[in-house]
């Protein structure tokens, strides 16, 4: 039935007014832009929070407005916003929505109405999250991992209502993601155009697809953990709450298991790393291939590596819990499975490098970000090998080494890919080109800046500087160089913070003043650049769906007229 519908425009929801076209829209492209703007908006809040944290850490005491409670709240909200509400929402809700139908040759997602609901639920979850800033006691300060019993015990900032808004917001987010994720997965499986086999899909789609499947299986654990903690907090149950001495009194709770929460949280939390990373892997593969004018090296290996990483990531969660007091034998198993993930990941890194090898590299802004991603990702991956080993992790856990590691590998790396991807697809989305010079300035400040920020953090971590501390004060084991390094990191962070203004200025300026974009400015072979209109019209493909004859990576084919062959070009013309 899907086949007969594919060329038929009837099942599409046709907007009749400005409101149905741009507000209550069921068009995947509009929903993608709504998702992206909301995600970037809430991401800016997280960015400001990080700047405030750096002000406190770099110049302790200079800003009396930042109290210890505030600092903990900034840490928690920054972490949760970045991981869930920015990265997951932007990569899957934003890029997933925009790219999947266009890259596989569909007119829209399979259930546009559910897709629309997904966005409005997401917006609701963001509103509930932000409401946390305005409830009595402020947002939660329990750290982004929200470990009980401290998250809901007296003494933790935001234990009154902040934790409630956070948990409710997460539960709504899971509902929103489920509606979106079902659409992404079903669309990829059932709504591809003629000739588009799974093994002809661009790696971006593979990454987003695998991440969506993982999200559908990992977010349930977060949902359950959030529900149970809400019960603990609001109904006084003892799921996670043991008997404790709190504020000089014995708590009425009895026999709960705080470790259970950690298991549930990280059963979500570790796949979440790859839910963010896999779309980034896929997108960066496409950026590298297009701008190096070479087919991606080892396409099949790349696909299988994505799938295998996705599967393995469900078997490694407790490597976040080496110091939690769980059974020590678990450490052996989880360290082994963690190190095994390094194999498919290394395959991907080698294949990116081999794609660049003897390529016709154009150092345009998207490509710069893609190459920068390889640097930061290798860097963060290598420090991950340290932390994956139990004996090395134990002294390093809860230090700045951990902060440096996960910021490199799942903070900076996906964000660089997102920048690259926005620079890359903007001409298709809005039909305008960016200012190249401004883009390059933005790139160099950001790229060098993140190294200035996060390299010294490794040093702090090895010295044993603990994370999540409001101020270090005069502590015997902490040398003067730590305070100097902290000040340096803060200055670098503030420069990078300000440099993002260039990005936003460029984005908004180009929307109105940028030169009109060619339908295919980079000479890309994949389907989304072959649409009849730029930006693509409602229904994407005009009267007839495109037919696909080849994979998405026919670049610099010997004997071909141009240095790329679009997926829609029939095979017979090759070498004629």
């Amino acid at each position, binding site marked *: 039935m899907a086949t007969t519908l594919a060329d038929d425009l009837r099942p599409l929801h046709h907007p009749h007014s400005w409101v149905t076209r741009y507000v209550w829209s069921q068009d995947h492209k509009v929903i993608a832009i709504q998702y992206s703007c909301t995600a970037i908006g809430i991401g800016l809040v997280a960015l400001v929070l990080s700047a405030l944290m750096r002000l406190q850490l770099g110049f302790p005491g200079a800003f009396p407005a930042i109290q210890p409670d505030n600092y903990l709240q900034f840490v928690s909200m920054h972490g949760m916003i970045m991981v869930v509400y920015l990265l997951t929402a932007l990569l899957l809700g934003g890029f997933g929505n925009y790219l999947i139908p266009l890259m596989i040759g569909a007119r829209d997602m399979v259930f546009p109405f559910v897709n629309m609901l997904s966005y409005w639920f997401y917006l609701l979850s963001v509103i509930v999250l932000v409401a946390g800033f305005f409830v009595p006691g402020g947002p939660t300060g329990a750290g982004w991992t929200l470990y009980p019993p401290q998250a809901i015990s007296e003494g933790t900032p935001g234990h009154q209502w902040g934790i409630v808004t956070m948990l409710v917001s997460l539960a709504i987010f899971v509902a929103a993601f489920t509606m979106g994720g079902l659409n992404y997965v079903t669309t990829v*499986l059932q709504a591809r155009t003629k000739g588009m*086999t799974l093994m002809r899909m661009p790696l971006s789609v593979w990454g987003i697809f695998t991440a969506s499947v993982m999200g559908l299986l990992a977010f349930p654990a977060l949902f359950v953990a959030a529900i149970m903690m809400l019960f603990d907090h609001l109904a006084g149950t003892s799921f996670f709450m043991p008997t404790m001495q709190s504020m000089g009194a014995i708590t009425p709770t009895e*026999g709960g298991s705080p470790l259970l929460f950690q298991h549930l949280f990280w059963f979500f939390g570790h796949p979440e790393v790859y839910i963010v990373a896999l779309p980034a892997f896929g997108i960066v593969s496409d950026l590298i291939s297009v701008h190096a004018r070479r087919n991606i090296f080892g396409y099949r290996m790349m696909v299988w590596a994505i799938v295998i990483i996705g599967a393995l990531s469900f078997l490694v969660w407790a490597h976040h819990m080496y110091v939690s007091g769980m059974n020590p034998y678990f450490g052996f198993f989880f360290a082994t499975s963690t190190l095994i993930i390094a194999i498919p990941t290394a395959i991907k890194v080698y294949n990116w490098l081999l794609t660049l090898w003897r390529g016709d590299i154009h150092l345009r802004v998207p490509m710069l970000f893609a190459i920068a991603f390889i640097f930061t990702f290798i860097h963060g991956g290598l420090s991950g090998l340290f932390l994956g080993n139990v004996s090395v992790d134990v002294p390093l856990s809860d230090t700045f080494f951990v902060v440096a590691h996960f910021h490199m590998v799942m903070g900076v790396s996906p964000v660089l890919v997102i920048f690259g991807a926005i620079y890359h697809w903007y001409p298709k989305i809005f039909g305008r080109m960016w200012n190249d010079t401004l883009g390059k300035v933005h790139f160099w400040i950001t790229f060098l800046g993140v190294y200035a920020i996060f390299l010294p953090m490794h040093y702090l971590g090895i010295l044993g500087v603990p994370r999540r501390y409001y101020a270090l004060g005069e502590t015997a084991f902490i040398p003067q160089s730590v305070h100097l390094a902290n000040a340096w990191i803060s200055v670098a962070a503030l420069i990078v913070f300000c440099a993002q203004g260039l990005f936003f200025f460029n984005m908004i300026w180009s929307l109105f003043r940028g030169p009109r974009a060619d339908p295919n400015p980079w000479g890309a072979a994949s389907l989304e650049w072959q649409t009849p209109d730029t930006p693509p019209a409602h229904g994407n493909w005009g009267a007839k769906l495109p037919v696909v004859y080849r994979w998405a990576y026919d670049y610099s084919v010997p004997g071909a007229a141009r240095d790329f062959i679009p997926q829609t070009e029939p095979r017979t013309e090759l070498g004629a």
Partner: protein
Amino acid sequence: MAQAPSDREIIGPTLREIAADWSADQEVFRHTHWGKAMMWIFLLSDTFIFSCFLTGYMTMRSSAVLPWPDTAKVFALDIGGHEIPLVLIAIMTFALISSSGTMAMAVNFGYQRDRRKTTMLMLLTALFGLTFLGMQAFEWTKLIFEEGVRPWYNPMGAPQFGASFFMITGFHGLHVTCGVLLLLIIASKVARGHYDRTGDYSAVEIAGLYWHFVDLVWVFIFAFFYLW
């Protein structure tokens, strides 16, 4: 008489067909309604939710400091002077499993375009669902008002007993409630001839998938919570 095909003769072509489907263009699951594919994927996700609830419950049960109440005694009913363990739960389970049977028949008659029988069977399924919910309400009332069990307190031992009981059966009951609503909506559309006009009775089957899933989950809750 022809020889029955051997296992190898069946498995080989089946595997080849699966490989062919996954390497084909357009659709992985051939001629499958988009909604049906999505419902299957949703149920997979929902399976993980219930698995997390049940694993969480089992973890808490094995680490609880106070003794766990004997479910056979707690959920026994006094009938005619005899205490019969789990009798209400047995009837609830029977009602729910019967409803799966009527649902399957409804799907069958749906594909035969028998509007009247499909409607009646779906309504019957919904009625079984409501019976289940009614008995669950009775069970909750008895537990709360006669036994004094609360989510935060349990006079018979571990407080986690009450907490996980209300959470898990409540979440399942919510699923049944949604299922009953879904069945009623689809049944009314069947009755009004909506699917005769579109020529597609898939919605009945999709609702059926969800309903069977809710039953299956109950079997696991029954086994892990009541029988353990």
